[in-house]
């Protein structure tokens, strides 16, 4: 009797449009938010924050962004790594060029810069579709990385081409650089994530979201019923790149501290985020969280299990680890092609029918 929508009658369209129409879900959501802001800071230690939680938060932002592009608007992109690099280098140039600019603005501006670049590389999507579009985004990926490793201006002419984030503060507390504490890193990433997830939710449930989905499901029909493909695709590229740029800026400035385009933002990154989106579930906000968690926590937990607990050699463990990750991807897809989010929905539907099997 726990999980029921019966009794939850909607009296207005507003309440029907709620993010969590079922009361149980809604309370669950407040609970999670409460835990994230109030309880987690108390119980997290440095290792878990740094090894797992902060990257999870950052990659969730990237996955949200990519999910908007692929999951909602149906435009396949493999340029995530390149766009994250734009965010990272933009934040580096802003941080070093305007030392007094607050880091929050730096990160937002980096997102905007990335959005611009995203729109530029999104232009071919008006003509090119599906896997063919992947080439346009791959071109972006390789070109951007090349640009950042070849143009000294981007790394302030440092001899090695590495960029390092100087210390910046929010309310006097350092959030970037070596002196930033795990807690402050956690908090800034969490705030960005919660805000951006909320915006993503709003965008995807409104008109723009429906335009994106219409383009995704059947672009020709969408155009005939009045969706402007140019506008929808480019807004999707812009919003998605904004998120990815913010994620790139956070990854560089807050998490890594130092980076080099080719190494930190290579094609692997594009694939990693793509995995998250697909494993989590295309076209689902929750999916971005689930996918990022699966792919960030999975390897770390496997490593801890195999190496630290079972005492296996690291290389054996690492080989097994990629095999297991690969196998898990396949198994998830076979179980539910639409990812963890869909799996979760099915479970909820079952719960709703419980105790009847169907």
């Amino acid at each position, binding site marked *: 009797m726990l999980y029921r929508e019966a009794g939850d009658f909607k009296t207005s369209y507003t309440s029907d449009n709620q993010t969590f129409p079922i009361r149980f879900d809604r309370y669950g959501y407040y609970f999670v938010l409460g835990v994230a802001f109030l309880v987690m800071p108390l119980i997290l230690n440095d290792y878990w924050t740094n090894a797992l939680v902060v990257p999870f938060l950052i990659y969730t932002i990237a996955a949200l962004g990519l999910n908007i592009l692929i999951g909602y608007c149906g435009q396949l992109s493999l340029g995530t790594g390149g766009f994250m690099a734009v965010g990272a280098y933009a934040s580096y140039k802003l941080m070093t060029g305007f030392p007094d600019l607050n880091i929050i603005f730096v990160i937002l501006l980096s997102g905007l810069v990335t959005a611009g670049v995203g729109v530029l590389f999104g232009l071919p999507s008006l003509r090119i579709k599906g896997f*063919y579009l992947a080439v346009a985004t791959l071109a972006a990926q390789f070109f951007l990385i090349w640009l950042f490793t070849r143009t000294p201006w981007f790394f302030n002419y440092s001899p090695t081409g590495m960029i390092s984030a100087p210390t910046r503060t929010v309310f006097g507390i350092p959030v970037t650089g070596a002196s930033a504490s795990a807690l402050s890193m956690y908090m800034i990433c969490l705030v960005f994530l919660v805000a951006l997830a909320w915006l993503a939710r709003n965008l995807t449930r409104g008109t723009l979201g429906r335009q994106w989905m219409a383009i995704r499901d059947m672009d020709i029909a969408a155009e005939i019923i009045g969706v402007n493909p140019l506008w929808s695709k480019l807004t999707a590229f812009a919003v998605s790149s904004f998120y990815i740029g913010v994620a790139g800026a956070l990854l560089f400035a807050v998490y890594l501290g130092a980076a080099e385009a080719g190494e930190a933002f290579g094609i692997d990154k594009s694939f990693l985020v793509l995995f998250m989106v697909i494993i989590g579930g295309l076209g689902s906000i929750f999916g971005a969280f689930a996918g990022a968690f699966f792919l960030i926590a999975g390897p770390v937990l496997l490593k801890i299990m195999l190496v630290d607990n079972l005492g296996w050699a690291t290389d054996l463990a690492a080989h097994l680890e990629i095999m297991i990750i690969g196998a898990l991807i396949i198994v998830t897809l076979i179980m539910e092609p639409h990812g963890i989010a869909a799996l979760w929905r099915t479970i909820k539907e079952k719960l709703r029918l419980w105790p009847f099997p169907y």
Partner: protein
Amino acid sequence: MPDTLLFAMEAAANGLTAGVMYALVALGFVLIFKASGIFNFSQGVMALFAALTLVGLQSGQIPFAHLINAIFGTRLHYFGFTLPTLAAIAGTVVVMIVFAWLVERYIFRHLVNQEPIILFMATIGLAYFLEGLGDLMWGAEVKRLDVGIPQGMSLAVDETTFNWFGYGFYMDTLELWAALIAAILVGALVVFSQYTKQGRALRAVADDHQAALSVGISLRFIWVLVWSLAGIVALVAGMMWGAKSGVQFSLSLIALKALPVLILGGFTSIPGAIVGGLIIGVGEKLFDFFMGPLIGGATENWFAYMLALVFLLFRPQGLFGEKIIERV
């Protein structure tokens, strides 16, 4: 003749053969895409795996030795005998066919009628799995692969061009061989897909899994067939690339070089893979030759993609790909 022109010609000629090397990898992609609409990301890893298996068999390595040793505390490495190259190749072909069967049985059978992106994702999962498996089975060290194909500067080309132009062109013998093998391979595959009943069935499956099932095409058979073929193509690619730069992890990354080739030629066209390879090969070599010094070199990674992109703007389905049907 002015030197620049000669040099450019040399670069272009090398581009042609380099393009063929890319095309070898692209061919495997095309086969699978044609037959199932699956964009097989694991093709590169398949090439690596095939090459690893070939070397392993050739040198009599014990598979999973590392794992066995770790578990049982043994110190196994080699069987102590080696296999002749041809036998090792035959053995690898068998392994690739078994692999194809397993892939169908345990993965794609369960993913019939799913969207292309889901299938694509599954192949990425497969790529991971296979990469780990390859390392676990044969170890991660660099291995030397020698199947008896000569390597190094082709003297014949050098001499001929010297007589013609007074400047001897450099061409790699291995790449010339690769061109020959690719030509044979493409010929055989074109005949297979255009002139046989199975060829037509392949295209039907790619269009609509469900409808193909409804006319009695056995997806299982078709898929095992094309994955086996793709496995063999991967072996050829792995052999050529492995001979060039050793067999090790990076071999799988050649898939990234094959993508623009594939896209430029069109996903569904076997000859397209070759033509695409040639265009990309020549294009990137010439671009690097003329523009590289001006903009800092190492342009090859992105130029191929940019070139493919420009072509796509004019032909969204690639040069020889099937037209994308847009109707309501």
